[in-house]
């Protein structure tokens, strides 16, 4: 029985290989890694200054089309700014915001979810009621509200996203914690006399971790979109900094004349969200059956 209680989720090296071997993780992970690298090395990768306006070269189509100018691979917008460079820099905001806000939301949501699922009783009731009220708000409206309240800027955007989406983590983690707590090894541990906190930390958490990790990836996908929406309505970072959402908004204005200004940031957003989702699904597939021995 002691062995049963002490059987925690150990991660033998063989599993790490499996992690990468899962096609979804490999593809999506690879793509996101590439995006991350692009974002980090943006100043060196971007061919032009993203803020530089060149009215002489305004509204040029991307390379390969008639009237395209050399050097502007993806064309320019109506102020003559290089789309490719803005796209590359936009990745910085997208990834930074999504990473930090998702982690924050995950932290808060998981902590509350674990507490609610494990300690039950009044803790569970309070947390559940809180989640319910929180979810009665349209998420977009709430985020807009929060950013309006806190003023624009990266910090507010991150905070806003985290504040809104922690409920996603909370609900799933709570259910998962309840399931794990009801399993034999947890009860055995209690019988042996481990303190509740110890059980939560050493026994339950490692088995809930895979769910949290998969959810994190999903959340980052959501966060990228929320940031895009916020910058679309002009509430994100200052309008100087290039963001995908901002580019989409601009692109919409000039849709009929220069469709490329909308297409590329939209495609980038599309691909990134897909990648995060794919990664999350793949991670879940790999980590789940292993943990549920």
């Amino acid at each position, binding site marked *: 029985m002691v062995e049963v209680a002490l059987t925690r989720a150990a991660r033998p090296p063989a599993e790490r290989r499996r992690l990468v071997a899962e096609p979804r993780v490999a593809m999506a992970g690879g793509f996101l890694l590439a995006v991350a690298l692009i974002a980090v090395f943006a100043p060196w990768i971007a061919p032009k200054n993203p803020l530089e306006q060149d009215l002489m070269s305004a509204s040029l189509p991307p390379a390969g089309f008639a009237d395209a100018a050399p050097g502007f691979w993806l064309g320019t917008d109506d102020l003559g700014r290089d789309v490719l460079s803005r796209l590359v820099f936009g990745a910085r905001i997208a990834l930074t915001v999504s990473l930090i806000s998702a982690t924050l939301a995950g932290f808060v949501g998981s902590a509350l979810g674990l507490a609610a699922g494990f300690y039950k009783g009044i803790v569970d009731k309070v947390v559940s009621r809180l989640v319910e009220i929180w979810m009665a708000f349209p998420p*977009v409206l709430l985020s807009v509200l929060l950013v309006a309240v806190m003023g624009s800027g990266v910090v507010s955007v991150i905070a806003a996203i985290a504040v809104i989406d922690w409920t996603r983590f909370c609900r799933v983690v709570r259910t998962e914690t309840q399931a794990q707590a009801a399993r034999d090894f947890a009860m055995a541990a209690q019988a042996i006399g481990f303190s509740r906190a110890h059980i939560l930390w050493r026994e339950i958490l490692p088995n809930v971790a895979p769910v949290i990790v998969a959810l994190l990836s999903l959340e980052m996908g959501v966060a990228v979109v929320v940031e895009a929406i916020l910058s679309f309505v002009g509430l994100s970072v200052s309008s100087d900094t290039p963001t995908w959402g901002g580019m989409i908004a601009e692109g919409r204005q000039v849709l009929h004349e220069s469709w490329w200004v909308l297409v590329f940031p939209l495609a980038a957003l599309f691909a990134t969200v897909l990648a995060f989702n794919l990664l999350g699904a793949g991670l879940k597939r790999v980590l789940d059956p292993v943990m549920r021995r």
Partner: protein
Amino acid sequence: MQRLALSAVTLLGVGIVVFVLLRVAPGDPVSMMISPSATPADVAALRAHYGLDRPLATQFGLWLFAALRLDFGDSISLRRHVLELLGERFPATLELAFAAFAFGALGGGLVAVAGTLARGSALEAALDFVNGLFLAVPDFVWAMTLVLLIGVAFPILPLSGRIDPAFASDFVTPFYLIESAVRWNGAALRDLLAHMAMPALALGLPLAAVIARTLKEALSEAMVQDYILLARLKGKSELRLVLQEALRNALGPTLSLTGVQLTFMIGGTVIVERIFAYPGVGALAIDAVVNRDLPLIQGVALAFGALFILINLTVDLATARLDPRQAHG
């Protein structure tokens, strides 16, 4: 009954949160409305008019009492009764949500049934894969993609508004869709649906993806039960089995997840309506926030909150009725 009481509490919670948030916010609604030449006395008068100089608790109390009488005050930025504004726009959003839901349920249902019938085949794998992709894409991205496609590539449908102004005067109620259907105004109906198509699609696709996945899982689980085997032995075809026998058992678990997704979808109207300039409640929301239009924001938040709670209640009730163990104990 207990559920209703809890819902009321939730709604109150929503009201409080919005109220507090807005009051705490930097940025004064009044300062947005006044002209540069106004004197401090004018500003003070305006603030007093809107009750912004009273203590927080008093403000909330006043607002609450008024709200219970359904008096939500006047919109600061649009200078109209909030209730009136909501009354005009809520039906539009409801109809849009209904259209999106119909599309999502039908589309998702079809995909789920097809996937269940194709169990174990390559078709099922393909459907699952595509479904997974659709699950990942949020309504905002769909909306912009549709704008791109229909705006540039295939301009066959209108991209903004609810109805051609030529038809607008035909209506008595704000429920254009219902009215034109009931009165059999074909041209208006077609026009309405054409305008609704893109936003409904943008909203409905994520819903369809969720329904497709959840329903298919539930159906697949039902299909391996013994009673299906017995029904098969009676000679029923696969399609009949899925529709007549499995579906009833699969609807229950699907419903609760669908309900959650529905609330997300409604929340999405905030951005989708804006993108397509569809005159619903959502379209008001963002501008209201940017303009710090407190009464309007509160009204909109409450409207959404009430709708969410309504959906949750309906889903709860429906789930209880669908499970014969609960319904006919």
